[in-house]
């Protein structure tokens, strides 16, 4: 039966080949010194500006002295599938991780695995998005009231009446739900405000543009737009239809901020505020974790609130250099893509960073890690966001950034 010998040999050969293929890949992994902290950066997916900026910030910090000597950082992108991120977490736990700083794809699906990790002494720091597992640290702006504040700002801009669009995020996503609930809580108070279209834009410029275009076909006479990330697409959609712009609120894309500051656009009717999710959260989370690991800080697992960025049109200030010096908060046209999310810096939390860090994940020459302010802001409980079975505070939707200028 010569064929069998042939078969078996081929099988082995193939096996060998496969093994070889992988071991090429492993070469890098096999060489780490034991004393470094083993930190994993776990992204659910990458591919939009926000995600990669957040990741780059962490990478840059990990290369900034003294962390470059202390940290062995490994990035893992597991894709939009919770199963995959669960698998990734499990592998990290098995790989004896000291800490995992992560953007969780689901606020709930990962809990079981996170819990297992905690029991094995792994620190979990979730940035921006959150998990409801109490043993993890959530560092996020979500609880800071983006929805209600921007909604109120829009209402003020519209003097309490008009037809508006809601450009939402991803259907069935807890963050989107929190923002929208907050906004609707405000809008409900004003009978003059009429939500004529509500669509999902997946936090993406292009989708926002397409969905807004669809909505405009049905309601050309819209008076204002309340948008989550991707807001710049809404402006483009309006522009495609003509020159008329309307008051709108959105998140932190550089394009949107430039548009807000653009006198011509203002003349065409654009006003509003830029707020929402800052990638810098990841850096803050990472530094907190490092301070705990390096015993510089005592902190039990808790939900930490990251301050909500708030930049109305008149506060937009172009930056001369590559960092946020003297209160500038926007980069001039052409320096970064319009989809670039500007809130990558924080003079207080992350003075070490520069634009290159956010774009390429490279450290800023000459900078060293600065300590964080001692106190952290505790985030209020929000069921389904950062705790499972808990009571939300009575003043869940209280306004912090803006006050009503029009009576309902």
């Amino acid at each position, binding site marked *: 039966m010569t064929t069998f010998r042939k078969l078996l040999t081929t099988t082995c050969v193939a096996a060998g080949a496969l093994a070889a*293929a992988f071991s090429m*890949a*492993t070469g*890098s992994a096999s060489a780490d010194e034991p004393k470094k902290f083993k930190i994993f950066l776990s992204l659910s997916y990458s591919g939009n500006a926000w995600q990669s900026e957040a990741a780059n910030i962490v990478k840059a910090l990990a290369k900034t002295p003294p962390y470059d000597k202390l940290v062995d950082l490994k990035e893992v992108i597991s*894709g939009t599938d919770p199963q995959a991120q669960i698998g990734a977490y499990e592998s990290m736990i098995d790989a004896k991780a000291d800490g995992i700083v992560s953007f969780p794809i*689901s606020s*709930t*699906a990962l809990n079981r695995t996170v819990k297992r990790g905690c029991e094995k002494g792994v620190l979990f720091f979730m940035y921006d998005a959150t998990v409801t597992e109490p043993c993890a640290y959530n560092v996020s702006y979500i609880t800071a009231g983006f929805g209600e504040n921007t909604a109120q700002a829009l209402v003020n801009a519209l003097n309490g009446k008009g037809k508006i669009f809601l450009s939402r995020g991803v259907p069935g996503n807890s963050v989107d739900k929190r923002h929208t609930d907050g906004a609707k809580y405000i809008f409900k108070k004003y009978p003059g405000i009429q939500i004529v279209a509500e669509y999902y834009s997946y936090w993406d410029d292009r989708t926002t543009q397409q969905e807004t275009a669809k909505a405009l076909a049905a309601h050309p006479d819209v008076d204002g737009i309340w948008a989550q990330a991707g807001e710049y697409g809404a402006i483009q959609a309006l522009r495609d239809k003509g020159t008329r712009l309307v008051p709108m609120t959105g998140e932190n894309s550089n394009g949107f901020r430039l548009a807000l500051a653009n006198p011509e656009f203002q003349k065409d009717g654009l006003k509003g505020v830029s707020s929402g999710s800052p990638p810098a959260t990841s850096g803050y989370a990472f530094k907190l974790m490092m301070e705990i690991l390096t015993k510089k800080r005592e902190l039990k697992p808790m939900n930490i609130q990251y301050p909500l960025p708030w930049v109305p049109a008149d506060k937009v200030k172009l930056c001369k250099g590559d960092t946020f010096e003297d209160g500038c908060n926007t980069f001039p046209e052409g320096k970064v893509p319009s989809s670039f999310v500007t809130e990558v810096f924080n003079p207080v939390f992350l003075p070490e960073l520069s634009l290159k860090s956010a774009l390429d994940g490279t450290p800023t020459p000459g900078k060293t890690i600065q300590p964080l302010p001692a106190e952290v802001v505790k985030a209020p409980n929000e069921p389904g966001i950062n705790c499972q079975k808990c009571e939300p505070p009575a003043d869940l939707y209280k306004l912090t950034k803006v006050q009503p200028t029009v009576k309902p």
Partner: protein
Amino acid sequence: MSANLDAMRGSAPGSNVAVAIRRVLTDGAGVVAILYVILFALYALWDRSALSVSGVTDLSNNAAPLAIAAAGESLVVISKGFDLSVSGVVSLSNVLMATYPIEGPHGALISLLICLGVGGAIGVLNGLLVAILRLQSIAATLGTMIMGQGLALVIMDAPGGTVADWVSNTLTDVIFGVIPISGLIVLAVVALWFVFRRTDACIGIFAVGADETAASLSGISVVRARFTAFVGAGLLYGLAGFMLSVQTATGNPTAGTPFLMLTFAAVALGGVSLTGGRGSLVGAVIGAATLMLLQKVLFSGGVSSFYTGIFQGFVLVLAIVFGSFISRLASTGARA
């Protein structure tokens, strides 16, 4: 294209062992099994914990939902169809489990029945559209998939809820300290397959998948065969949704979305011919397990995150090429 290969199976000379081995190698399931062993060996090589009980349990818990879903898909594919509704069913049963948690073993049973009910219902709908009304399966099931996802969003508009603790804790556990329960459930499905394999209904499905006209002229009811395939598939999707909920212990209205592509990848990797009539549910199951294992192997192999995909892609292709090569070798061996 595969006909001669099939032919060899029947008329392969040589000792029974020889025939048996050749069967394994000429049949997709066997090849993907070999691949799985190779990958697992690599995984164990790089990550000792792979052999620990918890490691194995993780693997099995991770793979179970996809494996069962792929098993369902393979039924439809063998009958020469595509079924996209899998992601709809999985999402739907997942949110139901999380919205109406029922504690205790009875609760588990009831929830299971609910999931099977949902899956079965959508399966029946697919069967109606494809088998009886003769719509193209890929288009019809696209419609039912979208409907399923919609209903899931209606029931639960954001992730949340909790699956009954008893269910999520017990079924992710191990018995006798070594055997993961999720693994047992998958084995149960496989066992069911081997029973089903020996029914006229299953032979009918294979026949219809290979040559509808001949099958109907041979007295097989094409409609019944197709219908059976879709309903069976639906039920298994329901079970997959159940197992997913068990693992994530929570509801997510979009939980099923990733299953769409993965099930097909698993099915094809498992050597089930996407043109119908050939393959085995076992292959699909192992294919799914392989896909899930691959992630771990790449992780433990330390492949740079950005390029993980490149490896996944190449392994997919390599697996297929390797498989067909082995099969050809085996069949030429038989011819000689």
